[in-house]
């Protein structure tokens, strides 16, 4: 990172008097001409604008009233009426709660069940550990279409369609292997000396895991939990076909009712999109740095 690389180059920059005339001086690595700097910034600015544009756009549309979306280039008629309408007159809050319940449940079950398995695969060599890791990856490969029909029929027979429990069970088929995969990556980053010291102090392997590793892996657990939450939060296919009554819709299903063949309530749509993005975005901002580390660690050492 920048802080690491700065000290190494510092002496080169410090001798000020001569360096003010850099015309003939050989450029060191990491230094660049003014033109290169401009090009660099220009590229990054363009990329940032593209990244931001859709987000800013729907925020703008959302605060321009019911028909603001029909004139996307105008900058008039700012009002919060879409938001009051979404919160007051639609089922948005119910859907929000439903999504939170389902995603929260999936997250809890996923992390709780997967943690000990992730630890075992990370630390213990046993027959079947490789194939278990392989099957975690395999579960990532399952297209929606493989499980959706059998699960639909099974849950239907159990009377679990259109219920929170049914959807949580469904999501666990994805989240449990995913959590195990990711947590294994995190446990790999914790030095094994800690386990050994635990064993020396007479802890059982499970005791070591529970008393020493879990507290140390708390950031990893939090990020895994968060990622599981987000995945369940934005799942579309299962929720669309399993949740049939409007009171049980999750956000991904509910929002589809705003814009369909016979309806185009883009004002409502954009306002609720913003309401969904804000909390997720904030959480995401804090978690993202650790997010990828776990994902790729789980893979490379697998």
């Amino acid at each position, binding site marked *: 990172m920048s802080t690491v690389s700065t000290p190494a180059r510092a002496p080169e920059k410090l001798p000020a008097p001569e360096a003010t005339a850099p015309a003939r001086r050989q450029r060191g690595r990491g230094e660049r001409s003014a033109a290169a700097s401009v090009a660099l910034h220009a590229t990054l600015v363009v990329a940032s604008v593209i990244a931001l544009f859709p987000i800013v756009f729907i925020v703008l549309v959302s605060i321009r009233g019911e028909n603001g979306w029909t004139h996307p*280039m105008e900058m008039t008629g700012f009002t919060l009426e879409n938001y009051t309408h979404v919160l007051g007159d639609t089922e948005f809050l119910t859907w929000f709660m439903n999504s939170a319940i389902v995603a929260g449940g999936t997250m809890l079950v996923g992390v709780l069940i997967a943690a000990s398995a992730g630890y075992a695969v990370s630390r213990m060599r046993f027959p079947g550990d490789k194939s278990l890791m392989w099957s975690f990856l395999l579960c990532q490969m399952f*297209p929606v279409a493989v499980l959706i029909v059998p699960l639909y029929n099974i849950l239907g027979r159990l009377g679990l369609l259109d219920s929170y429990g049914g959807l949580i069970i469904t999501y666990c088929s994805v989240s*449990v292997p995913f959590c195990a995969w990711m947590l294994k990556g995190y446990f790999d980053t914790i030095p094994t000396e800690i386990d050994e010291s635990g064993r020396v102090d007479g802890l059982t392997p499970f005791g070591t895991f529970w008393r020493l590793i879990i507290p140390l892996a708390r950031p990893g657990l939090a990020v895994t939990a968060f990622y599981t939450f987000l995945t369940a939060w934005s799942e579309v296919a299962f929720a669309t076909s399993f949740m049939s009554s409007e009171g049980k819709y999750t956000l991904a299903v509910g929002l589809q009712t705003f*814009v369909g063949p016979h309806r185009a309530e883009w004002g409502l749509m954009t306002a609720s999109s913003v309401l969904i993005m804000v909390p997720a975005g904030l959480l995401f901002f804090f978690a993202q740095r650790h997010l990828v580390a776990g994902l790729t660690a789980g893979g490379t050492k697998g």
Partner: protein
Amino acid sequence: MSTLTAKTVTKTRRSFATHWYAWAMVLPVVVVLAVLVGYPLGRGIYLSFTDANEANIGRVIGDFEVPASYRFVGLDNYWHILSGQEGSFYPRLTWTVIWTASCVFLHYTIGLGLAMLLNRQIRGRSLYRVLLILPWAVPAFVAAFAWKLMYNTDNGVLNALLSKIGIGAVDWLGDPTIQKLSVIAVNTWLGVPFMMVAILGGLQSIPRELHEAAEMDGASAWQRFWNVTVPGLRPVSSTIILLGTIWTFNMFPIIYLVIGQAGGTESEILVTYAYRLAFQGVRDYAGSASYGIVILSLLLVFSVFYRRMLSRQEVAK
């Protein structure tokens, strides 16, 4: 013979004695996988050998139970799909492969480029980083709707911008080819940040000394990129490309929400098509299950080959 079994029994017993602890710790996950993935998968495979659909699947209406009356039809469903009788499998497979390849290629190259830029010393680095990551925080269904609104032919902002610079309206989601380009654009927008962050992490884990040593030996920037950066990124790249391919191949929400309902059947990938088979019109459960199994097998073959290729490269070094 009997000694052999006795030997295996003692072997198993000894193995159990050493490993029971590890097995106990993975047991919950194994049970969950068996019940939630294994059993439905088995049933899915079974259904793919039958002619089950909405009418004959058997269900309970009130107190009245309709028994299932679907028949075993062997490999008919697979034959139907793979022989091309069904008509849409091969064109759809081609499009799915194009979709996956172009999305993953764009994700990776743009992500790599941005990560290389962000890995330099530059003013406002952390601000750029946050801005560029933002699309990742947007749930896919929200992104799909946002882009759908932007693509709107009469009232969309993209056409409004185009008319400002004097270009006529483009029917973003109407014409099949443009429709495909449009969904690739949406998915690229959504997927680049993940690759970027992952590659950035990989870049930072390459020791500085390697670059310095290469520079001492007179390597140009391009040579350093090929001989230091690219090999250094290998562990990260191989994982994210594999995951990215799997995720993109199965990318449901973008296709389904951006074009799925607009009658854009030609631009549907295999997954959304299989989903529609099962849940729209007359529900063809068997057909959908067979499609699912075919997709899974394709991905499985791909990842086995991919892994084998990687390890062969590793050995070759």
